């Protein structure tokens, strides 16, 4: 097992180097003086420029410059925003909980609907329900979610006036950030209505972000269940006269879940892609909107550092999924 963990962990080193190399060249490719971009300042006077040039190693060969950059990254120094002059890392960590909260709700939403839908579709194969689930999930999979968000706003916010259009919580409330997760922070505060305001604001973004994972999970669950239901041990269980529910819930589902869990893990990258769009539509104050804003403000340090951090997060989650997969499925960890 230790050997398996070590191999998997060592495999991410080239990926890590690749992502940092990409970020390193990004700053040198954008329009403008790279030193000004790196320092996060504009219109620097010549003396300071010379000092900065030495600090970032611009008088050294590229490989040394990359080494300097890498050591700064490893110390958590990702430069500072050109607009706010705040360190990129602290801006990221202030906004990241909002993205995580939204992403977790979206995955939960996708699981709560996708799993049962996929299971029932597999059991009632070729029924109207099955065709319906498959049709809807292919539609969900093809959905331009930025449009889906606008349509939901049109329906629920404009037509029926049920949900708010944007933001994380009503401006009436000021919630002291403790965990950064508003659903928890509002419960800790002494204003119970604030919690419901946060929930209201979460509904539409959750649906929008959860749509594609929902479609993928429903399709995957159905095909995994169909495969498992054709196995001999299911026939044996049927022959023993076990109740149908017991066969499905205990014998089939547990084995069908393994590929489904992998797919959920792989959805994390898709989820962040979706978060960028969802946050833009709903003015959700997370890292996705922050990155898009950075592009339009030409705040390149934020773009560089933010993209690097998001890449790291996805990389780490993929690694964890990989390790967890090896843990629940012994066949994987012994084949390497």
């Amino acid at each position, binding site marked *: 097992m230790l050997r398996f963990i070590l191999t998997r962990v060592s495999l991410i080193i*080239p*990926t890590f180097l*690749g*992502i940092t190399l*990409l970020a390193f060249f*990004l700053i040198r*490719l*954008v*329009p403008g003086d790279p030193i000004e971009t790196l320092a996060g300042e504009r219109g620097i006077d010549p003396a300071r420029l010379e000092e900065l040039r030495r600090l970032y190693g611009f008088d050294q060969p590229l490989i040394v410059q990359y080494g300097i950059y890498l050591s700064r990254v490893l110390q958590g120094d990702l430069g500072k925003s050109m607009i706010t002059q705040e360190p990129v890392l602290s801006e990221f960590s202030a906004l990241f909980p909002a993205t995580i909260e939204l992403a977790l709700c979206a995955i939960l939403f996708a699981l709560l609907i996708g799993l049962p839908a996929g299971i029932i579709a597999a059991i009632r194969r070729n029924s109207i329900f099955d065709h319906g689930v498959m*049709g809807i999930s*292919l*539609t969900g*999979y*093809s*959905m*331009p979610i*930025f*449009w*889906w968000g*606008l*349509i939901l*706003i*049109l329906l629920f916010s*404009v037509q029926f006036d049920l949900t708010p259009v944007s933001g994380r919580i009503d401006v009436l409330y000021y919630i002291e950030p403790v965990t950064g997760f508003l659903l928890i922070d509002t419960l800790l505060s002494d204003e119970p209505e604030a919690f419901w305001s946060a929930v209201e604001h979460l509904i539409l973004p959750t649906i929008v972000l959860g749509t594609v994972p929902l479609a993928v999970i429903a399709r995957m669950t159905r*095909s995994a269940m*169909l*495969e498992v239901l054709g196995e001999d041990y299911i026939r044996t269980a049927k022959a023993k006269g076990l109740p149908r529910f017991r066969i499905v819930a205990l014998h089939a589902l547990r084995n069908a879940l393994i590929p489904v869990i992998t797919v959920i893990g792989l959805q994390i*990258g*898709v989820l*962040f*892609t979706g978060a*960028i*769009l969802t946050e*833009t539509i709903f003015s959700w104050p997370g890292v996705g909107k922050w*990155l*898009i804003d950075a*592009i*339009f403000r030409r705040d*390149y340090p934020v*773009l560089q550092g933010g*993209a690097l951090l*998001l*890449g790291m997060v*996805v*990389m780490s989650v*993929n690694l964890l999924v990989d390790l967890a997969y090896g843990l629940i499925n012994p066949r994987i960890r012994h084949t390497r």
Partner: protein
Amino acid sequence: MNAETIPAPVAAPATSPPHPLREFWGYFSANHGAVAGLVIIVAVVLVALLADVIAPHDPNLTNTAIALQPPFWQEGGSLAYPLGTDPIGRDILSRLIYGAQLSLLIGIVVVSISIVVGTVLGLVAGFFRGLTEIFIMRLMDIVLTLPSLLLAIVIVAVLGPGLMNAMLAVALVILPHYVRLARAAVITETSKDYVMAARVSGAGTGRLMFREVLPNCTAPLIVQASLGISTAILDAAALGFLGLGAQPPSPEWGTMLADAREFVLRAWWVVTFPGLAILITVLAFNLLGDGLRDALDPKLKRS
């Protein structure tokens, strides 16, 4: 179409096997969804080709006198502008029709770039193995690790917004799928006897790669191409929506949505129709891709 790509069903030695194309159509047409997808795609292609003839108006002609006119079935709408007009009085139907040209162009260009580059990289990785393979595949893993839209956004931020750069970015993002597919197919194929036979009879590496092995890897690549077009259209539209793809006044569907966003509270039609066009087109290519996969490779058929 090569006979090798379609494993024959249960052998019936007495009668001659059906023509590969006929057999393919037999599998394909059994899938109603795939046929529906094909019909929609043919329709979109026709609309795009005949845009000059069927579009009722110039897609860029503005007329503030008729701004934000609703579709014809609503009060205040007229048949002259069947799907209504946008905030500066352009005919939405005409813009959608010309947008079909752009979307198909995006899909075809993006997939062509990544299929050509990806196949070559995959063939090279699969043939030469060793360090070359490790280098190429690690590079592709890095591209796959980053969230696709994030990578595309970063590329466009560096190159500058615009349709051409957006297409390049999306092409790079979907590249790893083709490299992996081609490499996997090459590795399976090279162990087969016919490759050995060609090698023994003195075929060079280039001939082996492109004349012997490549034709037998086309089935998965065709399937992936169809699915790739849908991803390309969707991602390019997302970039357009974020203001990083095609720039206004281009009638690209995602760009149209970005323009219309602030009018969502006042005029439902300016946001509804462009998105519907994206959804229907992307869905059609996904249906087609699913159908092609089932028809070209019955063994892989997902139940």
